[in-house]
């Protein structure tokens, strides 16, 4: 009984292909389809270096216009510990966000006198926000720590001391915040304090070469025979300091970028009555 079937079986095995070979063929095709689809959906990998990762972790999302456009894949320290290098994979559709001039920053909850921001990241994960540039494609970036600042013009204020003035101290013109202090540092010879004031571009034409800047960090009380005069800055200025500026009615030339002013400790009442008419409607042309 055992001999005949054995011979028959061997014959069948060597001569005819089994229908089962369809299965590995399907498996190969399916795997290829999966890999091709995966490869097609993969966007570019970008590298962003941050001085502070602010709690970003692997898989933290990258957001643009409120949508997730990529994810952090790897975090590592620069060799000299100076920055954190974040590697992230962008979605295919978001590949155009990786361009020279793109800005990347980390959104985290921040409560300050300027306001509350990044509230969604208290409960949700922290994320990297991107603002696309318009240069050629680029894959390595330097991260910014803050959201994009409004386009600003910088001026230098020279003062004997920077007491009450810190980064973020607002600059007012007629009680309206037109800019803020970005840095306070000692002058090269340490004789004065150097304060860098950034004025939003839309307000930049207000600053003239003969403008006056003075410190309003505090309350000024003049008590005399005729009565008491009280000069007070806005409440927020009382807490975080403030600088007010005024431009004479006969205004001078528009101050160029980096122009240096003296920061005065006191002001003259006449300055408050200055009413120069400055056209702010055509800001682009004044740059």
């Amino acid at each position, binding site marked *: 009984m055992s001999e005949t079937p054995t011979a028959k079986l061997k014959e069948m095995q060597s001569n005819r292909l089994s229908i089962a070979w369809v*299965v590995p063929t399907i*498996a190969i095709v399916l795997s290829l389809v999966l*890999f091709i689809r995966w490869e097609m959906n993969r966007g570019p990998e970008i590298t962003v270096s941050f001085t502070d990762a602010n709690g970003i972790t692997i898989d933290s999302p990258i957001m643009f216009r409120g949508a997730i456009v990529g994810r952090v894949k790897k975090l590592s320290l620069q060799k000299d510990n100076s920055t954190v290098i974040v590697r992230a994979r962008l979605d295919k559709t978001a590949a155009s966000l990786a361009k020279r001039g793109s800005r990347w920053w980390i959104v985290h909850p921040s409560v300050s006198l300027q306001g509350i921001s990044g509230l969604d990241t208290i409960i949700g994960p922290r994320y990297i926000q991107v603002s696309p540039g318009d240069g050629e494609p680029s894959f390595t970036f330097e991260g910014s720590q803050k959201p994009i600042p409004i386009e600003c013009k910088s001026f230098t204020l020279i003062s004997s001391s920077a007491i009450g003035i810190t980064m973020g101290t607002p600059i007012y013109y007629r009680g309206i915040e037109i800019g803020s202090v970005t840095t306070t540092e000692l002058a090269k010879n340490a004789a004065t304090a150097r304060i860098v004031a950034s004025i939003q571009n839309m307000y930049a034409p207000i600053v003239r070469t003969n403008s006056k800047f003075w410190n309003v960090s505090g309350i000024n009380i003049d008590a005399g025979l005729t009565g008491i005069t009280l000069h007070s800055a806005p409440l927020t200025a009382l807490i975080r300091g403030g600088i007010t500026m005024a431009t004479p009615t006969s205004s001078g030339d528009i101050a160029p970028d980096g122009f240096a002013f003296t920061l005065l400790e006191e002001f003259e009442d006449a300055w408050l009555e200055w009413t120069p008419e400055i056209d702010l409607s055509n800001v682009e042309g004044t740059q």
Partner: protein
Amino acid sequence: MLHVHVPRGIQRTVAFSLAALVLFIPANVFPILSMSRLGHKNESTIMEGVVELWTSGTQGIAILVLLCSIVIPLAKIFGLFYLCVTWKTHSSKQNSLLLGYIELIGRWSMLDVFLVSILVALIKLGAIATVQPEIGIVAFAAVVVLTMLASANFDPRLLWQQETKTT
């Protein structure tokens, strides 16, 4: 016609094993499940899961998962290949033993699929946290089913017959 053996059984075993080996690659490259926690989506492949289990201090479970989902399926596939190539020439006693082992360990490789299906069923907390199966686990389940088919198609009587022939 009377078939003593499953016709073209060896071919089938080789075909199913090959299919399993092919699908083993996407099963390990693609994520098997994704976990969303407060909008934070986290996908993990089998190997990432093993590494995570290991670093989080549960080395025992890490080894178990590694064995069940990578070592055992691979051992099964290559064991079947070995049997298909050597059933004519090698000692059938040794091969019978090997087939026995293959059948025995094969049961354990479905563990991952069970794990994912249980997790998905358990963790459905709406917006707070969800677990979703991903394409990797489908490929993995296919690998397990294919290895089961492959070993079922290997007729152990082929080995006995060899015994009778050599003696």
